[in-house]
């Protein structure tokens, strides 16, 4: 039971981590339309 629950939780976290890292890779740390950005889509991304 404990092992199963642990694998489940670790799995979920790992998945979220992968998703987050992918997102960061794509958008950069400043997160696309970061607060107050007049160029909502462009910042952080390579031009």
């Amino acid at each position, binding site marked *: 039971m404990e092992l199963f629950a642990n694998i489940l939780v670790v799995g979920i*976290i790992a998945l979220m981590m992968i998703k987050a890292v992918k997102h960061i890779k794509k958008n950069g740390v400043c*997160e696309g339309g970061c607060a107050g950005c007049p160029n909502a889509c462009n910042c952080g991304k390579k031009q």
Partner: protein
Amino acid sequence: MKIALAGNPNSGKTTLFNGLTGSNQYVGNWPGVTVEKKEGKLLADKSITLTDLPGIYSLSPYTNEEIVARNYLINEHPDVIINIVDATNLERNLYLTTQLREIGIPVVVALNMMDVVRKQGTFICVKSLEEAYGCPFVEISALRSEGFTDLLNKVYSVKGTEPQKRLIFDHHIEEHVNELENTLGDLNYKRYYAVRLLENDQRLGIEVSKETLETAERVRKELEGIFDDDIESIFATERYEYIEKSMKTCHKCGLKKTFNPDTILMNKYLALPIFAFVMFCVYYISVTTIGTIATDWVNDTLIGEIIIPGAQNLLASIGTSEWLIALITDGVIGGVGAVLGFLPQLALLFFLLSLLEDSGYMARIAFLLDKIFRKFGLSGKSFIPILIGTGCSVPGIMASRTIESESDRKMTVITTSFMPCSAKLPVIAMISGAMFGGASWVAPSAYFIGIVAILISGLVLKKTKPFKSEEAPFIMELPAYHMPKASNVFKHTWERVRSFAVKAGTVIFVACIVIWLLSNFNFAFEMVDSNESMLADIGSVIAPVFKPLGFGTWEASVATLTGLAAKENIVGTFGVLYGTAEVAEDGMEIWANLQQAFTPLSAYCFLIFNLLCAPCIGALGAIKREIGKGKIAVFALTYQTIFAYIVTFIMYNVGKVFF
């Protein structure tokens, strides 16, 4: 098919772009909102690309964003140019029209803000405008999405045609321009190049024959002789005279006089107090009053009493291991939650800043403060990036492109991040809440120190070689005030709130997990007390550096480091390190632990150092993009860090004497 959208700054290009493409680009009521071109597909026809260019007053490139616009028009060969014209400000807007139609690419003029024009009771005769400029004019209102179909129909109909010939200039000039055109052979956009050559444009972008150059030289001399004036003045005057003539037949001004808020807002005695009051209100309301009430509720009740116990029970009930429960509650919820807890304050700040931007007050602030800023070697226009920078440094840094003088621009780029951005706001709120009982002076003082740091840097940097220069001009349009549009303000606020939340869910989330792992295991991968963890070892190595500044603990050093990825991480790190599981029922425990780790003075020094030192990676990237790679970017980073170090060092050591 490619369509380019060109027009004066603040004429509503981006609103039209959003309307035609269904995108969500940023709109504001100040000149220079858009500093880069953007592309989108038409909603009506996906095969058509629409490019939104930065606003330009003329084709003689003067600032960087104007060069972007001009280069696109000349080098990318759009099929049609939509020239958007602010119909409430027709005369000056038509100046660019006279230049655009010269290029030879078919032009459709979109008369924007016709709803406002009608309300003012002003009459514009479209027929005579079309007659005068030889291209179709369409009445639209970008804000209300009126006239779009009409506009697109006109665009299709002019594709492949050339603007009809109109004699804009005096016959002497027309003859001379024609003569120069003939020497250019079968070049594209001959007339455009001929005029630019005559005007002695230094950034022509093409090689021309010696014969052409000689002809240009001779023709210019002849014209200057005929008009007894210099060539630039001749062309500008001729264009405006033609526009004035055309205005006589097609434009009748409304008689309705509206009240100008500037009589009060820019009053000699009231202006500065009102400005100070407005700025104080913005930060006081969002950081100290309403915002705090909401933030406290989220932190203490929602996260502390509902989410953390809930998650604990859930995980325990399915039989998860102790350490994993700790990772979720301390690491993920403690860290990310500590950051997200500040969302209400930020939402309020974003909302109030949007109101300021949309109303037109922003340009007045630049007008108001120019004299002060100039004393410190900066331009009044530097204030716009600074104010934008209170949302996020990255767009603030980019907004500096509207500053004409290269050295002023660089200086603004380097100093903008001194201003506390929205990511630093949670740090301010945390220190203020934990160490000073939420005293109302802490947040405003952070902004005040930011401004002072910028001004002092202005003085210091002006003395160094790369920034020494002639005084830059300040020639700025003051846009008309208008009521902020509710949908626009809410959209801005929502966009910013959303991206803050997304950032918490990505960057902060990953960072918190890493910090939790590093702070709970030692190098032998055994689970240990955080004081013996890997993170403690790493932090202890750097801590001596911060010792003279008053916060030489390994926790504070690590937080400063993680803050480089994103400043919210400082709060997240403290959330993970100081908010241990057994005290999680009470969200205030983080505060209690902070009070043990810091004295008020060292906490304040910690805060100031983190506000002033190197900004987050995102902002550093923006600085690099804006001022170029290499030495100067390194200089920027070094300068900021050393500056922060010296200021904090003085503050701590002087403070020690008194407190």
